[in-house]
């Protein structure tokens, strides 16, 4: 089947989802009111609370939620065939992510722009705030671990991408200084920055960076050395002021994201590539099955709890009219779904022949360890359809993924430092409060230890448990989504509206996550992977806790509703 058909089917389904389902959500579930005074007007301060044009705010929201995760998850999940992956992306986006992201914006906007952590304490129970803190701790630990490995895999496999990936840092800092010091528009310096970045790609090809010598000197493998170097860099980067490196690099990421989406879809259309992967790949019975692992392997790209942090953290404070939430929240999740579609296309239509695909996806370990490599090769192929050298195209894709992963790790370690500080305060370790160096070191060392955990089935991962870490990351991401959906459901019930649109994805996510956690628990126990076993058990406890909190809160709300009806009659 031509890959173009998949684009038409997916984007067509997304259009129908927006046209009909989001309209239903806006009118019947969230009951949007165009006259409601949004926080951006009520608390306007020119910094956080700023009424913003809905098209611009969609751009802000989309570039904040999109990252490397909607690329990695689908690139692994096509191991079970393209059909389950694309079906989950379509259904998850329309009936899960759309409800979740849209609902998080509305719920937050109706509660003075408070974030989902504060809202969970207010709407569910006081204990839910602690639960939120712990879920975010595990989410960030796993985010930092997996993206550390992602970057190491790419640098080892594509040494030509190291120079352009590193050169992003001074370019971002220079544009940053321009923005900081000059008050005018920055389109021209921005274009110069992009030209310099793309010019660095052939330079990187000419001078690939190999660190074998350093690895031999340290007596470590090349990948271990890369992982340690990346975490060491993150230790320093996460201590810099946000405006110096993090924010300008995020700005370059936003531009890269749009460029990448355009060239991938253009490459597929121009090259008229065929999908070479099977619709359903019947894998051996003793390996991970698509049911339930698909639903945690693709989190970002189908439904992701991380989006609720952005939706309630910044977007809800900037919406001009409450009715804009439909366009921004729902279309933001469709944008993320489109990125997942691009990853699926690259890994099913960009890898040559069916035999090449079968060899690349010979086992779950090969699929997970090689996921990024497959995506990068696929994008290289699509760019060759546009007349660009495939190697340069692959380097471009590596730079996109690495800058995303680097920014995610920088943010992740920074946030983890704050979370650790709060946990230390709650646990009574007051001596740790304010100790930035110690907290940053802890925020780096914990995921570093996880990133170096050896894995049994990681043929493509070359000895690292990347696949297992990725599934654990998916569970924490879905738990965050579960918490946000619980808040949304209770809030919708409190307004005497039918909460089923939120309760159905909530139940589905919690069921799939619990199931996958139990299967992982058994598998880690059999393999003797004690560190992963402890992580999995801790996340399972949080899942059980969340289920109890969600059921209790929904029951309480139902009781209050019945009492109100009885009072009225």
């Amino acid at each position, binding site marked *: 089947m031509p890959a173009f058909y998949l684009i038409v089917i997916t984007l067509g389904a997304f259009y129908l989802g927006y046209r009909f389902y989001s309209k239903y959500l806006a009118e019947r579930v969230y009951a949007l009111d165009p006259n409601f005074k949004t926080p951006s007007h009520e608390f306007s301060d020119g910094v956080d609370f700023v009424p913003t044009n809905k098209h611009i705010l969609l*751009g802000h929201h989309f570039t904040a939620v999109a990252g490397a995760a909607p690329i990695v998850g689908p690139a692994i999940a096509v191991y079970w065939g393209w059909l389950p992956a694309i079906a989950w992306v379509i259904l998850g986006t329309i009936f899960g992510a759309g409800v979740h992201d849209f609902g998080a914006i509305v719920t937050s906007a109706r509660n003075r722009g408070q974030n989902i952590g504060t809202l969970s304490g207010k709407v569910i129970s006081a204990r839910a705030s602690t639960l939120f803190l712990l879920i975010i701790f595990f989410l960030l630990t796993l985010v930092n671990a997996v993206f550390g490995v992602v970057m190491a895999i790419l640098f080892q496999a594509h040494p030509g991408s190291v120079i352009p990936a590193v050169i992003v840092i001074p370019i971002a800092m220079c544009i*940053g200084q321009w923005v900081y010091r000059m008050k005018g528009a920055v*389109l021209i310096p*921005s274009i110069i920055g992009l030209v310099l970045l793309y010019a660095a790609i052939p330079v990187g090809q000419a001078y690939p960076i190999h660190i074998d010598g350093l690895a031999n000197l340290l007596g470590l493998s090349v990948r271990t050395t890369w992982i340690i170097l990346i975490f060491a860099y993150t230790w320093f980067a996460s201590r810099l002021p946000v405006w110096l490196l993090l*924010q300008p690099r*995020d700005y370059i990421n936003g531009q890269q994201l749009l460029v990448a989406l355009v060239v991938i879809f253009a490459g597929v259309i121009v090259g008229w590539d065929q999908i070479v992967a099977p619709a359903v790949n019947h894998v051996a019975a003793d390996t991970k099955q698509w049911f339930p692992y698909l639903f945690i392997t693709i989190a970002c790209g189908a439904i992701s709890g991380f989006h609720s942090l952005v939706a309630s953290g910044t977007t809800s404070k900037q919406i001009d009219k409450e009715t804009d939430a439909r366009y921004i929240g729902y279309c933001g999740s469709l944008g993320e779904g489109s990125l997942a579609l691009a990853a699926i296309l690259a890994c099913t239509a960009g890898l040559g022949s069916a035999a090449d695909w079968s060899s690349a996806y010979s086992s779950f370990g090969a699929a997970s360890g090689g996921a990024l490599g497959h995506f990068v090769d696929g994008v290289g192929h699509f760019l060759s359809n546009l007349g660009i050298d495939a190697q340069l195209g692959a380097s471009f894709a590596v730079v996109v993924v690495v800058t995303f992963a680097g920014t995610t790790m920088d943010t992740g370690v920074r946030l983890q430092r704050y979370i650790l500080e709060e946990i230390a305060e709650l646990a009574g370790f007051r001596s740790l409060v304010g100790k930035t160096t110690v907290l940053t070191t802890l925020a780096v060392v914990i995921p570093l230890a996880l990133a170096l955990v050896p894995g049994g089935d990681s043929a493509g991962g070359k000895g690292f448990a990347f696949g297992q870490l990725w599934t654990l990351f998916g569970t924490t991401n879905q738990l965050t989504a579960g918490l946000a959906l619980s808040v949304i459901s209770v809030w919708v019930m409190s307004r005497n509206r039918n909460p089923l649109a939120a309760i159905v994805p909530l139940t589905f996510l919690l069921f799939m996550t619990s199931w996958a956690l139990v299967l992982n628990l058994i598998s880690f126990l059999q393999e003797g992977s004690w560190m992963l076993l402890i992580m999995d058990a801790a996340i399972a406890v949080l899942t059980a806790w969340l289920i109890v909190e969600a059921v209790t809160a929904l029951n309480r709300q139902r009781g209050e509703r019945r009492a109100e009806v009885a009072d009225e009659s």
Partner: protein
Amino acid sequence: MADDKSLWRRINSYHDELFVAPWRASIAREARKEEDVLVALLFLEALGIPGSADYFALELYPDLIEAFHHWHQRMGMETFPEAGVCC
């Protein structure tokens, strides 16, 4: 030509709002954090804590009272409980 200029200006403006505005906001946020600490220090007395700089900062109060109002709202107090300070 006039249309070209206007198109260029529009692209410039969209680019600025889309990519640069969040970043400028983060710079403003950082600056506001520093100002928040300054306001808290200058209004220590109003918070019930003896402040060594109060005597010298007294004449700044009329200029800072609006900033103080926004400050206590950001800190979660809709109105400031101490009579005669603001609100």
